[in-house]
């Protein structure tokens, strides 16, 4: 995916490696290890074997007959990344980087996490490979995503709440870099998406390309032709890059990236970089891309119902594909996302993550305008059932609230009782 860029790690004007000098040597070594692995066919074979045995790959491409009938247009297929171990496409990237860490001989991994999916995936990988693991997570996200923090800790990772800046994903990335500059000798930073300094965008896109490779042969087998369109939600952009790579060379396939429209892209509460007018070219977190920022270059606060899309930047590779018109960008609002999620659950018995539901929104807008001999693929990047706290909260479900209050009372009473017994 490097195209014909003059410089390695550039995609048109985007990308690069804007790293402090202290990391120069670390990146030189990482680039070497990555390029060696990439040139070695046995590395990819080992990766595919591992993902088949540990993470349910190849994931199915499910024909959503009821949704297709409901809209009466294109045949809707769903690529089931939710069926990966840990419940999302994040597993593809972390297991790939885990194999690389083994080759590099490092013993400790660190990662940033927003909603906690990438943190849980990294903690899982670390447990499997026997690495020490520290996860940086914004203090606000720690408070909002306790279930994922619980799992990371149970898996043996240390979770460090980040109290700087907006206390969310971007601040966790800064903090992970600060750890890395102090401990690069024994530590690898498992960046979670197709962003950051080179080689991360290219490397993570490579590991995620397994989605597109599978989807391409599956749609040919089930539908007998290329799809008319492929939909994916875009935060950093790793699941989108993963599936798009199976179709970028097929000019007839409309590739659609769906960003977080939040409360609407005309408001200041969204995370849309390619749609809307609040983003501009910038350099932060080690790379150049479209960032949501003010006139001075200070990053703006973002909002999305889906924590995994709540990020200021976008993959430099996707920014390029957007510029060239190869990828069409759309935005889905929080309200549209809830409606699409409800419809998908009721019609297919499938529960997409709030992030993935963004892709469903746009697919549902387009499907009725297409013909029955057209097929479309929605990349379902993750499953929603494990995010029950977030989704039940978003649904404002009264019986769920009663349950939480009841459980809270129960805990409070038992804590008070044991306190009294001590006194």
């Amino acid at each position: 995916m490097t195209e014909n860029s003059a410089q390695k790690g550039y995609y048109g004007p985007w990308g690069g490696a804007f790293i402090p000098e202290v990391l120069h040597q670390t990146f030189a070594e990482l680039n070497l290890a990555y390029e060696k692995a990439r040139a070695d066919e046995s590395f990819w074979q080992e990766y595919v074997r591992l993902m088949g045995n540990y993470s349910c790959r190849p994931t199915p491409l499910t024909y959503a007959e009821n949704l297709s009938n409901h809209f009466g247009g294109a045949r809707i297929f769903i690529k089931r990344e939710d069926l990966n171990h840990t419940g999302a496409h994040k597993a593809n990237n972390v297991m790939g980087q885990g194999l690389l860490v083994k080759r590099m001989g490092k013993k400790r991994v660190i990662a940033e996490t927003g909603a906690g999916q990438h943190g849980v995936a990294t903690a899982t990988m670390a447990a499997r490979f026997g690495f020490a693991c520290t996860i940086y997570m914004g203090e606000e996200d720690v408070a909002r995503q306790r279930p994922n923090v619980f799992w990371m800790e149970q898996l043996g990772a240390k979770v460090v709440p980040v109290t700087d800046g907006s206390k969310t994903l971007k601040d966790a990335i800064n903090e992970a870099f600060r750890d890395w500059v102090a401990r690069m000798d024994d530590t690898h930073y498992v960046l979670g998406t197709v962003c950051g300094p080179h080689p991360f965008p290219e490397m993570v896109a490579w590991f995620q390309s397994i989605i597109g490779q599978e989807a391409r042969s599956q749609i040919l087998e089930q539908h007998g032709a290329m799809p008319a369109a492929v939909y994916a939600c875009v935060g950093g952009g790793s699941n989108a890059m993963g599936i798009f790579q199976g179709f970028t060379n097929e000019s007839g396939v409309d590739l659609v990236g769906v960003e977080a429209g939040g409360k609407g892209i005309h408001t200041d509460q969204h995370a849309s970089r390619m749609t809307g007018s609040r983003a501009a070219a910038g350099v932060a977190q080690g790379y150049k891309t479209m960032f949501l920022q003010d006139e001075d270059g200070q990053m703006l606060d973002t909002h999305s119902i889906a924590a995994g899309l709540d990020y200021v930047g976008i993959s430099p590779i996707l920014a390029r594909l957007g510029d060239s018109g190869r990828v069409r960008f759309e935005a889905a609002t929080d309200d549209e996302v809830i409606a699409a999620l409800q419809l998908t659950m009721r019609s297919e018995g499938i529960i997409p993550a709030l992030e993935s539901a963004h892709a469903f929104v746009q697919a549902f807008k387009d499907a009725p305008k297409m013909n029955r001999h057209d097929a479309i693929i929605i990349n379902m990047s993750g499953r929603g059932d494990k995010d029950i706290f977030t989704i039940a909260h978003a649904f404002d479900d009264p019986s769920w609230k009663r349950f939480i209050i009841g459980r809270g009372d129960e805990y409070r009473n038992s804590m008070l009782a044991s306190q009294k017994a001590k006194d």
Partner: protein
Amino acid sequence: MNLTADLRKRLETKPILLMTHLVLGYPSLEVNRRVIRQMAENGVDCIELQIPFSEPMADGPVIVRANQEALNQGIRVKDCLAFAEEMIREFPQVNFLFMTYYNILFRFGEELFIQRAAEMGMKGLIVPDLPPEEGETYLRRCREQSIAPIMFFTPTSTDDRMREVADHGDGFIYCVARKGVTGKQTVMDASLAGYLERCRKATDLPLAVGFGISRREDVAMLEGRADMAVIGTATIRLVDELGPDAVGPFIGGLLG
């Protein structure tokens, strides 16, 4: 006189030079003004003026918080430029440098920023997230405007890398004393001494050594090994705890 020549001249009469640092707008420009006066009157040779950025990736907790507080209070890049211009006029005996992250230059317009800085008499620029590989136009424009692009050596730099980086730099080389972010203390040991010897061999430019210096002993241990001691986080902590008037005696004490 360019920055390198000025520093060499100062070194004829002093065993070691001092560079101090502050974050513009933290806690306020008014306090910055008083702190800078104390620094200048107590013989500081260079002052780094850090323009706040929302993502200060290479900084430690004290400076990160200072960046954030300054931004929360509404400091703008244009305020920083105007303030710097005023300080340069008021304290011609001090070499002023801007320290900031690349996005600040990039959004302002790289060419325009360098030109503005040079015109107001800024002597150098320190941009920790812009390695020479990404800074081709930046380095060229700095040369054209006779403003020193400060380069970094670190303990992880190979000898070859040091020479390569030094070729792009001017003014002095900022030698990071240890791995990690700003504000943590370092002791002089054989490995630090050996590292500074490697730095010396790699360049003719003066060597500034930073990160974690806060006492007279820290400065003394650098004499003969480096040309300039960098005081970063220590003055921010001092102003937080004791107010701006404590800065003068602190600086005086560092020089012994």
